[in-house]
């Protein structure tokens, strides 16, 4: 078992390159909440520098400090020195675990292995839609299935209304989140997913969860998938929906879809087709503030996670005056819905869920006129 954090050349360079300017403070969702230096990238980089130089021992406190990050990449995008702090923190988390500083996600790993999902839910919702020969296979992931079930139902209904020929599989957790919190992906679950996805005979894999999208795209366990991969917004951007809303609509860029995967335009192309009154928040695209649910924060510091979400939601409401907040990430939707106060009248949806409702209203309206 290693007795120290491994500072390879890449990590040393990142740590010494950090000029400790503090630009990252302005965009860090946790620093915005706590105002505590250690919660921000600058503080953590100083911490790692002290450890690297042998001035600070590695302790449980260091491990906890490194966990307090959503890995939103806002620091990375705004760093004038070109440093990617969140990569350094994720690597350090792995070292901490190797050194014996297990965190609460060890239990999550065991749960994922036993139940095939991050929540330990024994019963899986059967979405149906299982058939061979469909060109598309839809993968919805754990958060959608177990925490935003109604949203997924609407997305499925929407795809049916758009006459998309798709199938689904008995999913196992993509398990990529374990890599971000100090552990390893569950290879057997990845193999099971690959097997099921290849067996079903589809040519294109569509994901509703940006995090699953990233795992399928980037993790070596999925490199031989053999299917074209699309996030659902990439898949839908050229569709015509035939419905519009007059309501004021805004969009929140999920970190995993935007900064991590570079998908900014496709959701906007879809929204512009259905919402002539589309407004952007001030902090948008690669400067969008995080919803607080990523990087394991919802599990490790859930109160922080909800407060960050509340801050972002308040920011959006104040800056846009929107009636409808759209995003396309089950984790963002879930955190926002948990954070929303009763007095806040804004409605929160995934894009596909919202369009499904517009289509339903349209059909109901047509029926009553007939």
């Amino acid at each position, binding site marked *: 078992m290693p007795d120290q954090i491994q500072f390879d050349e890449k990590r040393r360079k990142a740590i010494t390159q950090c000029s400790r300017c503090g630009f990252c403070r302005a965009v860090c969702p946790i620093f915005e909440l706590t105002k505590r230096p250690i919660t921000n990238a600058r503080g953590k980089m100083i911490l790692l520098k002290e450890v690297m130089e042998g001035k600070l021992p590695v302790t449980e406190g260091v491990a906890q400090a490194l966990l307090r990050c959503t890995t939103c990449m806002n620091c990375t995008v705004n760093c004038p020195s070109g440093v990617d702090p969140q990569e350094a923190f994720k690597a350090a988390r792995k070292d901490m675990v190797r050194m014996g500083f297990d965190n609460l996600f060890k239990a*999550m790993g065991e749960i994922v292995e036993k139940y095939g999902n*991050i*929540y330990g839910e024994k019963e899986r919702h059967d979405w149906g839609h299982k058939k061979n020969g469909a060109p598309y296979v839809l993968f919805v992931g754990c958060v959608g299935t*177990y*925490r935003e079930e109604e949203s997924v139902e609407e997305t499925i209904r929407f795809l049916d209304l758009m006459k998309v020929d798709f199938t689904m599989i008995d999913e196992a957790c993509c398990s990529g989140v374990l890599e971000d919190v100090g552990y390893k992906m569950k290879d057997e679950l990845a193999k099971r997913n690959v097997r099921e996805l290849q067996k079903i005979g589809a040519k294109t894999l569509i994901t509703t969860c940006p995090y699953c999208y990233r795992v399928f795209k980037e993790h070596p366990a999925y490199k031989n998938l053999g299917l074209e991969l699309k996030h659902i917004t990439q898949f839908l951007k050229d569709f015509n929906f035939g419905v519009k809303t007059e309501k004021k609509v805004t969009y929140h860029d999920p970190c995993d879809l935007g900064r991590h995967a570079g998908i900014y335009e496709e959701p906007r192309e879809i929204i512009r087709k259905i919402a002539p009154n589309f407004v952007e928040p001030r902090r948008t695209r690669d400067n969008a503030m995080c919803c607080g649910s990523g990087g394991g924060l*919802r*599990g*490790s510091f*859930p*109160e922080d*996670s*909800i407060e960050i979400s509340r801050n972002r939601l308040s920011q959006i409401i104040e800056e846009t005056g929107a009636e409808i907040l759209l995003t396309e990430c089950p984790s963002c939707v879930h955190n926002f819905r*948990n954070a929303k*106060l*009763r007095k806040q009248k804004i409605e929160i949806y995934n894009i596909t869920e919202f369009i499904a409702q517009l289509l339903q209203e349209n059909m109901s309206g047509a029926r009553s006129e007939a």
Partner: protein
Amino acid sequence: MNIEGYEFPEGLYYDKNHFWARVEGDLVVMGMNQYAQKMAGTIVYVGLPPEGKKLTQGKNFTKIESGKWLGKVFSVVSGELVAVNEELERKAKLINEDCYGKGWMFRIKPNNLDELKNLMTDPEVIREWLKGEIAQHGKK
């Protein structure tokens, strides 16, 4: 009364979904019991439905969440939801801190107080039930 290491105050009614009921005037107040709040971990969200919602005893009407756990909230009596604990909106953790007091969840105008007979009050009955729950889910 302390049952298997958990507080179950006298004078309350307890259901098998881990909620308690207390009669206050012509209303029934409900909340979560101590065993359940400890097992849940730090509670971060309770769904607060609109007042006026019709409730049925034993039927779930909203949800409650900690970091990664999600649970259903079941009504202790049939009736109409007349008040929610708005403090829980910003501080759901009150349920962990004071589940029988400041962490109360809902006030219900009951259709028929006789339904409370379906809930548990006898310490020995509660004990046997709780032992079964602990055997199945563990304890914290």
